[in-house]
């Protein structure tokens, strides 16, 4: 069983071990970390956290657009660790998760993967 280390920078850099095959949300909650969540299938964004180093597999997520992915967000209820990772958790990490769509419209390449344009800027 492959295990990786998760460091939570906005919780005094506390470290946890997680199973690479299980969702990070479940792994952390089972060890007593108080995390927000909602749908538990990767669609609702409530459990979003910011990945500041390392890699995750979150191909099951359908909530994030490319702008949010570029800002480092991961959906913990479906994401699995692929290496040791560092996270900021909770709504404190959501500073670049939400934007007013009338003030800052998305460019076509920043949309969700299924409708984003392929060309780069």
């Amino acid at each position, binding site marked *: 069983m492959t295990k990786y280390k998760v460091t939570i920078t906005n919780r005094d850099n506390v470290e946890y071990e997680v199973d690479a095959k299980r969702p990070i949300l479940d792994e952390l909650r089972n060890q007593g970390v108080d995390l927000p969540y909602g749908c538990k299938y990767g669609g*609702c964004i*409530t459990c979003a956290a910011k990945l500041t180093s390392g890699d995750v597999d979150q191909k099951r997520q359908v909530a994030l657009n490319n702008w949010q992915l570029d800002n480092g967000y991961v959906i913990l209820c479906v994401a699995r660790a692929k290496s040791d990772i560092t996270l900021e958790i909770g709504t404190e990490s959501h500073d670049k998760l*939400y934007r*007013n769509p*009338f003030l800052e419209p998305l460019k076509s390449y920043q949309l969700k993967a299924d*409708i984003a344009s392929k060309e780069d800027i």
Partner: protein
Amino acid sequence: MNKVCCGPGYASPIEAINAPREKLLYTIAIYTGTGIQKPDYLATVDVDPDSPTYSQVIHRLEMPGIGDELHHMGWNACSSCHDDSSMSRKYLILPGVRSNNLHIVDTATDPKSPRLYKVIEGAEIKSKADLSGPHTVHCLGSKIIISFLGNAKGEAPGGYLQLDKEFNIIGRWEHSMGGIKFGYDFWYQPRHNVMVSSEWAAPNTFMPGFDLEEVGHLKYGRELHFWDFEKREPVESFYLGEDGLVPLEVKFHHNPDSTHGFCGAALSTNVIHWWKNSDGKWQWEKIIDIENEMHPEWPIPLPGVMSAILVSMDDKYLYLNNWLHGDMRQYDISDPHNPVLTGQVYMGGLLGKAPEVNGVEVAGGPQMFQLSLDGKRLYVTTSLFSTWDNQFYPEIREKGGVMLQIDCDPENGGMKVNPNFMINFGKEPNGPSRCHEARYPGGDCTSDIWL
């Protein structure tokens, strides 16, 4: 002649209008998405001006888990089973949009202190009916149907879950979704064998937040659907186009003989009216068109965002909100083809017209509302949906939502904010929460349907 019966609700809309005044109301309040790790809850609000706790939350019923995002609610029974003495309006059903759980709350044993009666787990609904993203609850005689906006994976169009009166899952209500692309709200008018349903978006689209560009990519709805209610299948759809972007709340006249109904197209900020003509054909037209407004600092004109509409029990007035502009409006719809604006008040909003009401800074804009049965008191709340609040009104995290009450004149028209009523959910014991839909124990203007 008044028919005396012992089932729930009232024999007719007129009897409902003459019912005793509401003394309590229930509203849901959320912590989902706020950063406070507490369950969402059902708040009991004292609305009796003679009570020492008037204009206060007097009870809070917490849900068993966090992350539900309570939203709309519905009764187990309404005037549609007025003739059935075995039924009573005892249970309020509180769906969690994100968790998929359905909470059944007993409000009758002690109306001031509702208690949790049963939870139908979201996982059971997914496995038995392949549905998620519950929204509107209507009773249907002794049964209950609930619109769900997605399948178990959060993909549109979802469908309708049917429960029996003991809150067991019967299964899917509809026999077919036809070519429907999205679900949201619905209302039925049994004497005309019709149900009308509207379109928001797939849960996977609207739950993470709103992107204007996704409307252009057809990720949001723009159609209304007319159903053969007995056959449980859609038979006709109206493509509303640019006039009907994101058609949300659906209301028929309360008069069970009427074919007139209305839908608020949220993003176009229009009211769509439909009716059956003398040839028996359904017709539609746009009757209200709220212009976009320029915000001094923004590049794109701001739509009102009409997220809710309500028809008074006497079918004379239609109320609507402009969540981003910040105003509530009252229209006389005595002639439903030609509505007349008769009242308007501002509370919050992005245009800065009423940043403070009754001494409290309002975060958000008018969003959900419930009218008293007699048409004189409109209770208004300010939060739309946690992620959408966070995009448009980020200050609501610290300030919470509010509930206000508008005094309405059902004789001559007109609205004004009641200066004595203000519930500031920013001061809740566990921190700022956001209140949303409200309902009265005796039935209300957004639930009761007559057979």
